[in-house]
Structure formats: C-alpha cells, structure tokens
C-alpha cells in the first residue's frame, strides 16, 4: 500500500512524531511504500538542525533524517508553517525540504491512505 504521513505536532512535547516514526518504520518493514511525510503546524519543528536533546534521549530529528536516507523518503516541511515558526533553509536538517501545502494535497490524492499524527 502507498501511504502518506502527516505530522502536526513538534518533537518531545508531544508523542505524535515518535508514533509517526515508529509507524512509518514498521510500514516500510512490512513492505509498504511511503509516498511522502509532510510536516505541518508545530510539526515543522521536527526538521530543525539546531535540535540538541540530552545524550541519553532519542534524537527525533536525526532519526527522521536517517530513515529518509535509508529508504529514500520525501520529507516535506510546509513553507507557511515553517516561516511562521522560524524554520528556514539555513536551519533545516539535511534530508528535509521546504515546500508548499500543495504537497500535502498531492499526498492525499496519490496515496492509498493518508495517516495523520497529531493532537
């Protein structure tokens, strides 16, 4: 199945990104395709290169980056939501890209299922 993933909450405060990550990883292991992961609302904070959690904690941002690199997943951060929250190309982690909301709609159109992780 071709899946689209939407993440609407930031890292650490909320579990949404963790659950989305584990779901996406499990889906790939089961042989499903990930059309795109789209970050919206506070979800855009999952792409900040400046994120530095304590050493003994999971690194939510880098974990997405690695998953995307290993499986060639398109990680898209909404431009309007990102600018509003101070996320720009200069502090965007490698492996993410900033684009428009149209990418979310296209994900809805192209995927068999769009799965939302949020509050």
């Amino acid at each position, binding site marked *: 199945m071709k899946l689209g993933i*939407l993440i*609407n909450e930031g890292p650490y405060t909320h579990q949404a990104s963790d659950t989305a990550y584990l779901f996406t990883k499990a889906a790939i292991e089961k042989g499903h395709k990930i059309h795109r992961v789209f970050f*919206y*609302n506070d979800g855009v904070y999952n792409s900040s290169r400046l994120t530095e959690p304590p050493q003994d904690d999971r690194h939510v941002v880098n974990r997405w980056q690695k998953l995307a690199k290993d499986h060639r997943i398109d990680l898209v951060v909404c*431009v*309007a*939501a990102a600018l509003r929250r101070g996320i720009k190309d200069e502090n965007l982690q490698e492996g993410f890209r900033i*684009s*428009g*909301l*149209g*990418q*979310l*709609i*296209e994900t*809805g*159109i*192209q995927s068999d299922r*769009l799965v*939302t992780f*949020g*509050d």
Partner: protein
Amino acid sequence: MTEATGGIEMEEDSAGKVKKFLYVNRKAPYGTIYALESLEVVLIAAAFDQEVSLAFLDDGVYQIVKGQHTKPIDVKNFSPTYRALEGYDIEKLYVEKESMEARGLKQEDFLVPVKVIGAQEMSALMDSQDVILSF
C-alpha cells in the same frame, strides 16, 4: 513552483484524479492555531479540483460563529474567510448537531450556510470520504 497550488505543477500525475476530501475542525478558533492553519490548507486545496467538504465538531463549531471580535486579544479575526469559501466552490459545510446544541448554538448563529447533521450522519459522511484531514 506555483503560488496558487502550493508548489505543485498541476500537470503532474495528480491531474484528473478526483478524491473526496473532508476537513474536520474540532478546535476553537483562537487559543491554538489549528483552526487558522486548517483553513489555509482548505484554501490551497481549492486549487486542486477535488471534492471538498468541511465538518465542524466539538469546539470547532465556534470557528464559524457570527460576531467574532478579536481585537482585545490582538489576534487576526479570520472568520470572514469562511464566507469566501463559496467563491472557491467549497459549499459543503457540515455542523454536528450534538456539538452545536451542547454549546447553546443555533443554525442562525453561523456566518455561512451549513447543513446540521447528527453524530450518526456525521459518521456516515466520514465513512464516505477518501481523505480526512483533522485539525
């Protein structure tokens, strides 16, 4: 990159495919950004020629209540934008009856024409959709 379609060229393979999109609005218009950012998605979606409906449940019913005054909290009153949706051919707006009544609201309190439906009908509406975006 095209402004109106949020970075997607319409000639891409999404052209021609029409799906039913339902936007589920569950939160009050102010206090959190969900209502405003949901509306921003709806406006972009209008450029994609999909079958779009909006549903208002829980505190989400307050999003379309008449007479919103936001000056004292220094937040933009974006409620007039809901009136503009008609111009984008987005005319299917549903309000959940139970949510509306629990908050002492009536159909006349809304600033746009809506269809009031019960929770069971709402459930059937959701079931009939291809894509549900809940904010």
